[in-house]
């Protein structure tokens, strides 16, 4: 089964990577339309999540928003499929970094303990990671291991050629994360979804949800600055990266309490990002109890 899924993905991918960007997007949006109509779970779940994030939405607005969300998600997929032929130089004009965000990044880097970029499933992190990797310091993505395995390996290899390492969320990966931070590199991770099932329940948009404490735990132990960043797609299909001032985890002695406190601090920023760009928060998964 997974073998066939991988083959189907590879077949579509090898077609899409040969297309010009607007065509790839058109194909993506077409696929998104079908997914939006027919997906049994993704759309209800997404709409549920969006409703929690923005409770003031009416039914009609929610519908529009979830369609926009699917559309952006499909474009992100198209970007991913075009990645093997992308060049860092060609990506450069696609990214607009808020000058303030660069300032915060420099501030965080100045501590000399690496930077943990914390974010959510929004926009596309390849572009910003590739460019920062080429200009500032090597970037690693701390991300889940996808199934099937071949897909994960493909995902890893295509990122690696842009200078991005992909570290899995297990002990070996964690060791490498600490090593990377020790060498003053940057690690990008998302905390809006608990993948390993070890998250701590805490309010997320006012309702309890399992949230991973990993990034905060690393920051408390190593003193690494945490930088909340959000990357979102602009109407002309380029990206903009924004950030808020870095969060420094000051250990008070009670490690667990520190981790929870810091994570909650980060979550407030993430919530802010999501509320500003709900149409880009691609997360058709179960986060809260009661989701379909």
């Amino acid at each position, binding site marked *: 089964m997974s073998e066939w899924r991988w083959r189907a993905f590879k077949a579509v991918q090898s077609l899409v990577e040969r297309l010009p960007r607007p065509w790839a997007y058109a194909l993506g949006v077409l696929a998104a339309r079908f997914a939006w109509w027919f997906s049994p779970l993704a759309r209800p779940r997404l709409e549920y999540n969006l409703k929690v994030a923005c409770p003031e939405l009416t039914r009609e607005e929610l519908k529009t928003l979830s369609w926009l969300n699917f559309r952006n998600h499909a474009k992100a997929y198209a970007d991913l499929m075009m990645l093997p032929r992308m060049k860092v130089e060609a990506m450069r004009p696609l990214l607009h970094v808020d000058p303030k965000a660069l300032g915060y990044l420099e501030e965080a880097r100045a501590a000399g303990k690496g930077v943990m970029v914390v974010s959510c499933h929004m926009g596309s992190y390849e572009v910003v990671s590739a460019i920062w990797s080429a200009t500032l310091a090597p970037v*690693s993505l701390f991300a889940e291991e996808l199934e099937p395995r071949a897909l994960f390996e493909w995902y890893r*290899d295509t990122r*690696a050629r842009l*200078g991005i*390492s992909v*570290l899995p969320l297990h002990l070996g990966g964690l060791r490498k994360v600490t*090593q990377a931070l020790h060498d003053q590199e940057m690690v990008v991770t998302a905390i809006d979804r608990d993948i390993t099932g070890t998250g701590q329940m805490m309010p997320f948009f006012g309702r309890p949800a399992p949230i991973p404490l990993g990034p905060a735990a690393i920051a408390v132990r190593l003193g690494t600055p945490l930088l909340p960043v959000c990357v979102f797609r602009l109407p002309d299909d380029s990206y903009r990266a924004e950030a808020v001032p870095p969060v420094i985890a000051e250990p008070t002695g009670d490690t667990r309490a520190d981790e929870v406190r810091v994570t909650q601090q980060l979550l407030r920023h993430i919530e802010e990002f999501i509320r500003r760009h709900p149409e880009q928060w691609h997360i058709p998964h179960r986060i809260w109890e009661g989701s379909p």
Partner: protein
Amino acid sequence: MKVGLVSPYDFASPGGVTDHVRHLARQLRRLGHEVRVFAPSSRADVDFDSAEFYRIGSPISVPVNDSVARITLSFHLADRVAAIIERERFDVLHFHEPLMPALPITMLRMSTAANVGTFHAFAKSNIGYFYGRPLLEPYLAHLHRGIAVSEPAKAFVHRYFPDFALDVIPNGIDTSLFRPGYPPIRHLRDDKVNILFVGRLEKRKGLGYLLRGYEFMKPRVPNSRLIVVGDGPLRSSVESYISRRRLPDVVMAGYVPDSVLPRYYCSADIFCAPATGAESFGIVLLEAMATGLPVVATEIDGYMSVLEPSRDSLTVKPKGWAELGAALVILARDGDLRKRMGSYGIEKARRYSWEEVAVDVLSVYGEAQKARAQREAVGSREVINVHDAV
């Protein structure tokens, strides 16, 4: 000195000659010379200022020497080139592959500067040189000085033009770019022994033999990984071979941009170059050595002019995949040997840095200028003699 560098190949697509020209131009400029580059280019945005780069013609792909050369074949460029030469008044024009149509050969004919030609290519035979010999010889006479990048490249030119004097000046490498100490690609840097291949995926690079060698090696050294950097026409067949034989731990990295390539070298333990021939020089070998990697390579002339087997490398017969596998096993099992060969390689690669190479090239420029002055002197005396006779 005002120098013009002329390359026949597409400046926008990667290649050995193009890189050579690019680095030489940079190094000469660093030494205070004025440099202009002439090349065809498929894109307008090359990494040189428009004042320093003349984009002459657009390239087309021509199959040559088991590979694809992207050259321009427009012969109507002559007027434009002549105007530029007239305006710029070069001291030296340096032609890369001087007998390659259409750009270098056109410019060579009309150049009045001191002409230097560098021969990069090496092959078993060249139909163009063979049949074109009577046509090409007068062109060759325009060159005041010739350079070959290696002994095999020199021998290759001498087969067809035995009387033409050539100095051997090796290719350079950028030792500030290729050095140990880059952050590795994190997920490739684990307890596995990484074998690295870098090159276009085409038949003459011999990746097929490396894959078979790796297949031979894998059961003997289970904690090993093969990293293939490069793209090319054989990519899909390489991928299907890997999946058909279920070869584990092969990473197809695809085309890796120059900014990331040193990180791949720093993620590897062994460098393997299994080319089957038609390589005039092993620039990738030097890059690997400069990064401190031991090399496993095939015994072809181009590579052997760079390598010292058993000091910085293990060498095997071309196409001998079992031998190749065995050599990989030896190196993969012996960390001390890898370290020893690697550190010798770093020392050796210093001799090939662009700083050293540019100095040699400049001395050839000086000789060429002298030769040109002499020829002119001889030429004018001849005219006087004619008048004397009248």
